[in-house]
């Protein structure tokens, strides 16, 4: 493993974890609204949120490229206001990973919220707890296992993301290169042994993430 390889590993782990944490509050808010509220046209929002899960990742990447580019609605505004570029920077990687793993988090968190008996929340309110207190002391702890599962899957999805990332961030060594992009590039260049070393690291990272979360969840159950 070269220094550049370690940089790729570190960057991938960091940007995946950051994107997962960044989507957490929005994902939980949306999941809660979908689980607990009804309104006409709710299914449209549900479909829209699920789109990145079913669309080709490259297509999602293309949409992001258009929106986040200097001439795009969001990218243009950032460029004009802050002289900040998104495309082909780590920010683009972060956004691409977040967008691609968002539906998984929302799906799992929504199921977890739906499994919390609403009667428990209602009774907590009769005991004098306001909406936020009910959410943080009843809903969230009872949905924690499902949400944790959603977070792990979102993180794992981010670790392996390829299509959307390469569209919006390219594969710039030392800048936007992630594990998946590096493996692909090494295979393209015929450096299979290099690719296999990175593959090994991917397996270790994924294994560590899933195993440690399972360990945490078991410990949580025992301390209850």
């Amino acid at each position, binding site marked *: 493993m070269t220094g550049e390889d370690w940089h790729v590993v570190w960057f991938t782990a960091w940007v995946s974890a950051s994107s997962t944490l960044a989507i957490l509050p929005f994902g939980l808010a949306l999941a809660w609204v979908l689980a607990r509220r009804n309104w006409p046209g709710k299914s449209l929002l549900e479909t829209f949120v699920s789109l990145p899960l079913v669309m080709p990742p490259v297509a999602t990447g293309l949409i992001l490229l258009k929106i986040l580019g200097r001439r795009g609605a969001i990218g243009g505004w950032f460029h004009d206001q802050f002289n900040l570029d998104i495309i082909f920077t780590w920010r683009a990687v972060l956004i691409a990973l977040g967008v691609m793993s968002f539906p998984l988090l929302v799906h799992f968190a929504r199921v977890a919220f739906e499994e919390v*008996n609403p*009667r*428990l929340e*209602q*009774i*907590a*309110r*009769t*005991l*004098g*707890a*306001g909406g936020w*207190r009910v959410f943080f*002391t*009843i809903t969230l*702890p*009872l949905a924690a296992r499902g949400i944790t599962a959603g977070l792990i899957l979102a993180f794992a999805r981010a670790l392996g993301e390829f299509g959307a990332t390469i569209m919006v961030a390219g594969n710039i060594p030392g800048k936007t290169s992630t594990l998946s992009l590096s493996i692909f590039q090494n295979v393209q260049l015929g450096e299979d042994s290099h690719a296999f070393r990175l593959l090994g690291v991917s397996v270790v990272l994924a294994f560590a993430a899933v195993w440690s979360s399972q360990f945490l969840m078991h410990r949580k159950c025992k301390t*209850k």
Partner: protein
Amino acid sequence: MSLLLKNVSLPLAHFTLKVDFEVRSRVTAVFGPSGAGKTSLLDLVAGLRAARSAFIQLDDCVLTDTAKSISVPVHQRGIGYVPQDLALFPHLSVRRNLLYGRKSGGAGDPLFSFEHVTDVLEIQPLVSRGVTELSGGEKQRVALARALLASPRLLLLDEPLASLDSPLKEKIIPYLSRIRDEFRIPTLCVTHDRFEALALADEIVVLVDGRVVQTGPVPEVFTRPANAEVARLVAIETLQPGSVIRMSEGLATVSVNRVTLTALAPAATSHEVLVCIRGEDVILQRDAASASSVRNRLSARVLSLRPQGALVRVELDAGFPLFALVTRSACAELNLREGEPITALIKAPAIHLVPR
């Protein structure tokens, strides 16, 4: 306490809950068959459901007034609610469940101390346990204590005994009576069990298909049902105060107006009881019969005969007023006439003793 519900209208799956009543007693039973809208009524009072129209006032505080778009938020109503499934928080210990309502309000001193409530309900030894380790009866007491510790102005109990089996039910009733007598919190208690209502409530609201069909003091409603529907639901023709003289081998000897009766012993020991006998459980017989398994054989006199559909309601003087329901044909065969003597037979299990 006064709880006023006016112009309440709430569409439910099969009918619209429409109620209009006021209760002033300490414990009021909302009585009715399953699916009559009882739980929805409690939800409305607690603010957990929004009615199409409603005016709900507790003492001098308007909780809901749809005409003026007033609806006090659930967490500011100060109404304790023990639902049928108890809704104990499974991820919290018994102690944290009990203290959940304590941390919220903050305003004013709590009505009762933690020690007092846990003492009365005998849950002191349980506080460090997890709620999943509790038995059914223990869970029930913890849920009651949790509601009380939040210092409610009104307590709503939804079928507090429905999920318990018979022996456990009889163990919980004394705790509910203690809550009534010790903490003196106005209570609205949903039930479909006549004896539960008799044991706990002062007043009763009979609800059928979303409509109030009768309200009044419990003994009055039970002995003088307003119509055939209420009669079918609640009627216990004979309700007499009595005193338990002795208990042995699962049987209780009770004195009612100096007449001794044998009944099954209630689980809760109480000297003063309400003796309940349904009219259809009283058998009338002409001759002083030979030996039989019936434990109560009373010499009585027919006071009046009142036809009720296919049946005749026979009022008897057996040393206390006793009512029997017999078919018209039986009445003719026995040649029952006012003023004549007759023997009334009642099996011991047909006499229900409700501790008072």
